[in-house]
């Protein structure tokens, strides 16, 4: 088919292209540049090929951090998605309760990451924190600074507290868009509460759930600020996630080459996992829709 392309249209895209170039493409290319070079200071760089990539992929430290990241994302998805759905299902659909619930749900989302970290760092302290003190006085041995398990519990709890609201709000948006007639028809058809959830609410929430899972996966997989503030990656390396490790290598040890290689691998993993989630979840719904 013959079409006249108006090439002037590209000028309209140009401002966005410039913006994206400065915010994403140029930094990314800089990282690519670092990842294949070595330096001994004095701003002199030598070609290193894929050496850094091999080093990263053969380091136990990288695989352990990646493992911790995957476990962390798995745990918080397993908690936040069902919990978010459950809360959304039980939120009021009309009346003043709606506004109250929505405001309460939005509050954690409005708090900056580092403040969330600080809140929980104080909250969990055995000497002055409400949670730590309460647990200690109940006779539970809780110390997130020394015990890896307690540190994990704290970080997971903090993330659940901070981000379940997001899942709730998305699911709630999906739920209130279901017309009343569906519930009425279900009543007439004699459907059980479970059937209503399984065949009406869940299918209608599927799109927003996809977004919720994607956002929560990507965010939790890249989590940095909160554990950095609360545990600093410790005790030992027990809460050192990829991002924390990356910052240690890049800024702490100033090993730019390995850090750059690691960021690229990290980036590709996030991209790949998001693609897998997206494909699986969209296919789940549309299965044999033709």
């Amino acid at each position, binding site marked *: 088919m013959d079409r006249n392309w108006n090439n002037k249209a590209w000028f309209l895209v140009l401002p966005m292209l410039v913006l994206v170039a400065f915010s994403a493409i140029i930094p990314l290319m800089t990282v690519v540049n670092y990842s294949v070079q070595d330096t001994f200071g004095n701003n002199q760089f030598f070609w290193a090929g894929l050496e850094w990539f091999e080093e990263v992929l053969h380091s136990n430290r990288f695989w352990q951090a990646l493992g911790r990241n995957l476990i962390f994302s798995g745990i918080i998805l397993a908690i936040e998605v069902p919990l978010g759905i459950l809360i959304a299902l039980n939120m009021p659909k009309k009346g003043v309760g709606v506004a109250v619930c929505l405001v309460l749900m939005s509050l954690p989302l409005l708090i900056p990451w580092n403040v969330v970290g600080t809140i929980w760092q104080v909250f969990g302290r055995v000497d002055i924190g409400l949670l730590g003190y309460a647990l200690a006085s109940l006779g539970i041995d809780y110390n997130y600074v020394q015990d890896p398990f307690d540190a994990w519990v704290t970080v997971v709890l903090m993330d659940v507290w901070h981000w379940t609201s997001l899942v709730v709000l998305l699911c709630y948006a999906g739920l209130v868009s279901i*017309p009343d007639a569906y519930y*009425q028809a279900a*009543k007439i058809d004699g459907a059980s509460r479970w059937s209503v959830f399984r065949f009406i609410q869940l299918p209608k929430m599927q799109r927003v759930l996809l977004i919720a899972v994607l956002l929560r996966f990507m965010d939790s997989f890249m989590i940095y600020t909160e554990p950095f503030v609360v545990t600093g990656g410790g005790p030992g390396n027990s809460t050192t996630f990829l991002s924390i490790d990356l910052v240690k290598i890049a800024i702490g040890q100033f090993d730019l080459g390995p850090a750059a290689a690691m960021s690229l691998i990290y980036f590709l993993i996030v991209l790949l996992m998001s693609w897998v989630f997206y494909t699986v979840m969209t296919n789940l719904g549309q299965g044999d*829709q033709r």
Partner: protein
Amino acid sequence: MARIDLDHIRHSYLSSPKTDADFALKEVHHQWDDGGAYALLGPSGCGKTTLLNVISGLVHPSRGRILFDGKDVTALTPEQRNIAQVFQFPVIYDTMTVFDNLAFPLRNRRFAEDEVKRKVTETLEMIDLSDLADKKARGLTADQKQKISLGRGLVRSDVNAILFDEPLTVIDPHMKWVLRSQLKQLHKRFGHTMVYVTHDQTEALTFADKVMVMYEGEIVQIGTPSELFERPSHTFVGYFIGSPGMNVFPVALDSDTARLGSQTIDLPGSVTTEKGAKTELGVRPEYVQLGRAGLPITIHAVEDIGRHKIVRARLEGLDLAAIVPEHGEIPADPHITFDPKGINIYANSWRQDLRGRPWTETGTTRPGF
């Protein structure tokens, strides 16, 4: 299948209704026969859907009782009442196949699987969706989805009644006609009590044996299509049924004559109304005869709609519509007379009987409308 008694039903969506205006349903007290096909006709917001939901149990009435075959079901849930209801917009279970959609109400009631299969297959054939049985329901067109909704309503043969809430709104005009005649056939074949809510008079009149016209939360008339046409018991029925609606003029009554402005109209009988009542004379455009004698009018428009012409005129400063035959003559100095058998007298909007009418009130034939 059941006889449905509505015993002084009133319903308000407010928690503590005070005046009549607070009630969505003012007072409904009627008996619907077992196996009847009823249509609830009325404008949007007149309480049709509320009444339907009261019957199915989705809404519990503020006052009054509902009885199925004499048994009080007011406190029962929709499931316990064993009612089928089809809604205005298609309700389908997206993730299920067409077959499973129809099987859903049966499986919920623990029918044996071979009976489910038999009933669903039979219903699918009725609504002409057999070839789509194994398709996922979400990919279908609006027509097909609404057929699934209808199918779920029809698949249970033991229901007490099937309620339709404007089910054909989203359907294409030609499909509407097909589905409506299918419903009519199903009614003949299985004899379910069917209640059909609509704001479309053609739909109501073609579907039902008895049409109930609702207005502002009340049933203002129940009748056969011809009764609604010939003897509208409320001026609203006159306006609402027929196209164009009935002409209604404010008149002063004097036993067997009515005065309209400077004109006097002879009535076919005498009528007395209580003092101070608002009195009106209603006559359908079909019973207004155009000629050279009678009441003088001024014509301002003539609409030729093919079968006949609609003359829009003014009589004593009031709007009037008259239907004249396609090739009827429209005189230069037009006058009108009212056919005596088309004259209705209303006091406070309700129809009054005329004493000494020279013909019977029943057995009138319905002009085509």
